[in-house]
């Protein structure tokens, strides 16, 4: 129980770091969605593009996160502020599940439905916004959910380059060999991941097309 006493004693900092963590995860997921969903839509409609795009996102995924943070550090404008750098790295990691699920969701729409829609004179954008996206939305959202859960974990590593967030407690605890401090970072992070997972899962079920 001494963990919770420690967290209570440092509640201001716990709150501050949690908010920082949320900021890192929230902004990077938003950026990844803004890039990844349109990209997923494009590759779902142009079969030749899906392999290079998904392959590229996959390669990013294989770069160890600490290494990626390190690679980006010397980049001029980015390297100037650690949080910019962390947000970019987290965005890159979040791309794969979002692109992949958007692609899968749209490709999963019954071809007969698309053909009927096109045959009755829907424009490509009407087909996209009235048919394909509504039918794919729950699959897309489940990609966003995976991205958020991954980001919450990854963002703890961003503290290694000084980007803040709950990783600060974890690294400090590691240095001090103090479990209480590690847990003061790990527990709120786990709660964030769980909370985001539940909330987005709920939304996903609500939006699932009949």
């Amino acid at each position: 129980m001494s963990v919770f006493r420690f967290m209570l004693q440092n509640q201001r900092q716990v709150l501050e770091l949690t908010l920082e963590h949320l900021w890192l995860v929230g902004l990077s997921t938003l950026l990844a969605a803004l890039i990844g969903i349109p990209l997923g839509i494009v590759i779902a409609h142009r079969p030749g593009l899906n392999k290079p795009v998904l392959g590229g996102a996959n390669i990013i995924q294989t770069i160890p996160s600490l290494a990626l943070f390190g690679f980006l550090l010397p980049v001029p404008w980015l390297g100037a502020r650690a949080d910019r750098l962390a947000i970019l790295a987290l965005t890159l990691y979040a791309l794969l599940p979002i692109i992949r699920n958007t692609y899968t969701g749209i490709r999963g729409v019954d071809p007969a439905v698309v053909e009927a829609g096109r045959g009755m004179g829907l424009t490509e954008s009407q087909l996209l916004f009235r048919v394909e996206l509504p039918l794919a939305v729950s699959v897309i959202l489940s990609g966003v959910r995976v991205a958020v859960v991954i980001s919450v974990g990854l963002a703890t590593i961003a503290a290694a380059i000084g980007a803040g967030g709950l990783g600060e407690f974890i690294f400090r605890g590691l240095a001090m060999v103090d479990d209480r401090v590690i847990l003061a970072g790990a527990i709120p992070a786990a709660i964030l991941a769980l909370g985001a997972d539940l909330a987005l899962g709920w939304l996903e079920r609500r939006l699932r097309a009949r």
Partner: protein
Amino acid sequence: MAEMHPAVANPVIEFRDVSYAAGSTQVLSGVNLQVQLGETLVLLGRSGSGKTTTLKLVNRLLSPGAGEVRVRGVPNTSGDVIRLRRGIGYVIQDVGLFPHFTVERNVGLVPRIEGWPDERIRLRVEELLRLVGLAPEMASRYPHQLSGGQQQRVGVARALAADPEILLMDEPFGALDPLTRDDLQREFLSLQQRLRKTVVFVTHDLREALRLGSRIALMEAGRLVTVLTPQEFLRSTDPWAAAYVRAFGEGLESAINRGTS
């Protein structure tokens, strides 16, 4: 001076030397075909003979490699493809109802996009459901709550929504059980007697072709073999037509009789 041929009406749909290839495969070769106002032209042939391709060339889901397809006297490439398609009803075997829309929204989608007022759409949907033999309370159902036969009735209603002059039907009753198919064929005939749409109907079922068609266009390996009335088809000496008649065996005469009664 325009030539006057009062006896020969202008075809609503006309294929002029149309060929189509998918990659290196020649799917259609030199098809010439005319579909007259108010008739039901059946494209009959086995799988891969080019029936569906022919149909999709009409509403430009496919574009010919050579030749041209004319709709209402003008090449169908001359205008906007979206306008062309909205004037042509399209019914396919897999129905393709929008699963996230109720029956009412499925049927009313094109009118809605066309900007009809809500009340007019509601009345039109009601009218169409009655026309295809569905109870009004079906309007609020979702496609997955309907039987196969009911789904295809909705498919037909949806195709008729904006009152198109032309109807393209690609094996619309092919996936239904025999009894339901019989019902829908009968209703198609009575519907067609009232509406007099210009219909192109794809099937591989000779019995269905004899029953529903004003004329039957027989296709084989991407070519149009012959175009005959149902009566002519049964007596035809054309080897492909004769082969079809043999394959379907006895009792074909009665199929026509039922159709025209």
